[in-house]
């Protein structure tokens, strides 16, 4: 009798629970939607003048030019006057109020830090100056 009973017994086939599959899919979906959003680039945009030709060379009156110079030791001057970085935005704003045609020229020494140039460009952007030109001081 005992032997017959053992033969009748059937093993319960193992089952993988599938109920949470859609939850996993949704989690992966959120991951793939959010991932590209996080990797945005932040920075300051600028359009370079392009190749120098007679057509695209613009002559500007000296009175309409405001020059910011960064020396080799990262000292800033605004129209030959030494100026701390914190006061630069207001100085540009004042200059633009006095003359709206002002073109800002940012002249940086090749040995100056790139970070200082970006800091000055940041102040120029914050002061809403539209006409900006980058210039490199010749050694």
């Amino acid at each position, binding site marked *: 009798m005992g032997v017959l009973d053992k033969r009748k017994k059937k093993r319960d086939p193992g089952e993988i629970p599938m109920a949470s*599959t*859609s939850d996993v*899919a*949704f989690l*992966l*979906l959120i991951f*793939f*939607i959010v*991932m*590209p959003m996080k*990797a*945005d*680039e*932040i*920075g*300051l*945009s*600028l*359009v*370079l*003048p*392009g*190749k*120098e030709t007679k057509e695209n060379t613009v002559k500007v009156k000296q009175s309409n030019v405001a020059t910011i110079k*960064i020396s080799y030791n990262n000292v800033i001057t605004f129209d030959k006057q030494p100026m701390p970085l914190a006061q630069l935005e207001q100085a540009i704003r004042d200059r633009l109020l006095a003359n709206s045609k002002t073109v800002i020229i940012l002249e*940086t*020494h*090749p*040995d*100056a*830090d*790139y*970070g*200082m*140039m*970006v*800091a000055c*460009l*940041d102040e120029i*952007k*914050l002061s809403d100056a539209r006409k900006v030109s*980058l210039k*490199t001081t010749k050694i």
Partner: protein
Amino acid sequence: MDFGRSSRKDPYIPTSSMGDIAFLLLIFFIVTVVFTDESGLVVTLPRADAGEEGLRDMISNVFINSAGMISIDDVIVTAPDVVSIMAQKMQENPFMIVAFKTDKHTPYGVVSDVMESLKEANAIKVFFNTDMEITGQEF
């Protein structure tokens, strides 16, 4: 008559296909997502308040570390090499924006030389990346 006995079934939204929809969307996002495989150079970006978001799809990176090494597509190049590389990239995508991922202590002269090469290659839209620390392979 059986009219009185008929009972209305409660309305319900079938949710059995939710998992299938999630999987389809998941496959779509997995296929379309683009992971950048460019490791670049180790740089500490400068900080800026006027930073704006850049279109990631349009951007081509130029890494410059504090020692003045230039890396494009994980290849160390010199400033004059940038002309031919960027000219080729401009042919593939005329709306390309060149993003400078440059260390804040890099001498500006190196950046200026690269910008001159970009003008030659007619890649005039530039973007100075700010405020994010980027890690990559060390040289």
